[in-house]
């Protein structure tokens, strides 16, 4: 019986300390409204290592899209972007970086798959989801828009046909150096 009496008490205390710690941390981060890309090692298609802190598009916007070869909406998203990619690049200079979260089961498919689709994105592999965790990505697809200063200014989860239009509106704002409306 004592164990049963102890249990809820223990959970409550744990919960309180959890909330307390979070408030403390949150109050510290009030200073900072912007968010940069976390620095995480990824694999290139060649098999070498690249750190996300080296991502750079010379002051033009970057769109980072998390996808996998087994994720249908992800492929639809990257297809939809690719249909417009050359226009988008001409008008805004945007660069799309596709982060594959395929693990070692399907990671070998990534390069031939990308070529089979004809995509010309920069593709990197996040083999054990380290970058995915650092970016708080749950189920893919999830896309992040990075501005000239390297701040993450917009994120979007999921994909349905037509979402690429909304995405492009955001890219145009960022390319023009405008803020993304918070109400959006």
């Amino acid at each position, binding site marked *: 019986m004592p164990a049963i009496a102890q249990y809820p008490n223990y959970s409550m205390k744990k919960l309180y300390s959890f909330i307390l710690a979070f408030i403390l941390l949150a109050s510290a981060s009030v200073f900072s409204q912007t968010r940069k890309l976390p620095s995480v090692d990824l694999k290139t298609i060649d098999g070498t290592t690249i750190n996300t802190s080296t991502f750079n598009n010379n002051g033009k916007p970057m769109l980072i899209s998390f996808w996998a070869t087994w994720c249908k909406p992800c492929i639809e998203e990257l297809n939809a972007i690719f249909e417009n990619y050359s226009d988008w690049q001409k008008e805004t200079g945007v660069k799309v970086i596709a982060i594959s979260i395929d693990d070692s089961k399907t990671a070998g498919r990534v390069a031939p798959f990308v070529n089979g689709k*004809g995509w010309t994105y920069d593709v990197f592999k996040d083999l054990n989801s380290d970058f995915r965790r650092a970016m708080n990505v749950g189920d893919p697809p999830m896309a992040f828009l990075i501005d000239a200063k390297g701040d993450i200014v917009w994120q979007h989860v999921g994909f349905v046909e037509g979402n690429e239009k909304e995405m492009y509106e955001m890219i145009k704002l960022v390319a023009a150096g405008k803020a993304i409306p918070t109400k959006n």
Partner: protein
Amino acid sequence: MRIELRVEKVSNHKNKTISFFILLSLITLMNSVLAQDKVSPGAIHGNFQGDAQYYNPDSNINAPLVPEKMLMNGYANFNYESEHFLAGLRYESYLHVLQGFDPRYEGSGIMYRYLTYKKDQMEITAGSFYEQFGSGMVLRAYEERGLGIDNALEGFRVKYTPIEGLTFKGVIGKQRSFFNYGPGIVRGFDGELSLNDFLKSWSEKKTKIVVGGCFVSKYQKDADPIYILPENVGSYSGRINLQHGKISFNSEYAYKINDPSFTNHFIYKDGQCLLVSATYTKPGIGLTISGKRTDNMNYRSDRTVTGTLLNINFLPALTKQHTYQLATFYPYATQPNGEMAGSAEFFYNFKPGSTLGGKHGMNLALNFSKINSIDTVNTNNEKGYTSNFLKIGKTIYFEDLNVELTKKFSKKYKMIFTYLNIIYNKNVIQGEEGIFHANIGVIETIWKMTDKVAMRTELQHLYTKQDQGNWLEPLVEFSFSPHWFVSAYDLYNYGNEIKDKQIHYFGVSTGYTKNAVRMMLSYGKQRAGLFCVGGVCRTVPASNGVSFSITSSF
């Protein structure tokens, strides 16, 4: 006696949690100090996921009774990041855990929390972490939430990059098992060298070479009254990744010393696994061929557990992961005790304007995989069997030949044709009688009706003379960009020999997405089956009810 033990355990855990928060608070303080020095103060980000389901009783589909009526899994991650410090935790709650997950996920708590310091060439993590050496054949700590897998290590990890191109990693810890830790200690070391980064003279070479190697050892006390079991079990591997222009070659070979366990029936045989893969690819075309031989490679930090628990290594399956529902009926799960696997895949992009590509282009994907047993001869001694490395065993475990054709007819209209031919050995994969042969066809259409409204339909059919016979599934989905979608399906087992079992599993769902928030509400019947990700599967019981899920990232 049991009660006393439990109280002690709980208070121990509490102390741990509290000390962790003291550390977190310390970092916060440091953070504010840093802020005053105009050093970047960092920020908190995270995400939340909640999946709830209300269960209706339904004896017709054999849905188990759920006395709580409603169940929910919830996860919230909070990550703090600054230039050199990272800290974070995940609060998880299973009240009670959803049907189909292991019921040992019970209650709420924090099992994932970490502190990381990184500067220059060094990175140190204390607490929980995920890690993978090479392809993971020797060590992989990972999470696959959809399967309820989380074997995060709890301990220390150090990463060190003394020179560009050379990385060392060292880990020590115990593996998570639900709201506890496995009994064994896992220790590992990994080194990786990228020649093109390491040697200046190689930096411009067209040939890229990366080599690596690792050693992992687990310790678990031998408490067995009869057997003398090895308490320290070592496993190691070497790997190479070669790339020359359009051609690449990858291979990893892993070896494990004798490791009698429940899953290998306590034989004292060494284990090994070889993975080889070659790829040719250039814009518009891709070809990849892989082979794998696995022999007695179950490697867990508790020799008594089975299923997906406390695996130290990860043995990737070479089969394609399908997404259409009927194509996922017969999924393969890696057989760590032994398998000979081969696969080949071909991708081709018929460019717009070419003969077959037509005006808008066409994509082709061809895939074949076949998995057999390894050839074994029983030895009637403690080693169990001997096996000829190159000989393929006679038993077929799995075979899958599939083709997918994506054809765009206009800017607004696209179709995807898929055909699969599958042989599935249920006896080996699920431990139940039956070898099934199935043919599956799917026609998918995507029609962009306006700039914002799109209609997607699927017509799936599965043909088999075994198991539950034929299935048919029409599905329709409307999406209203940027926020809404609605869909409906009817999965119909019209070919079931038993008239009463010719069931319609229908369902409807709707979802709303706004930036990083997604909500989904579904109602329907779910068929019992295997749900798999990456060659690892969990069985899902049949259910009938309403489910709601929400994900949000901040």
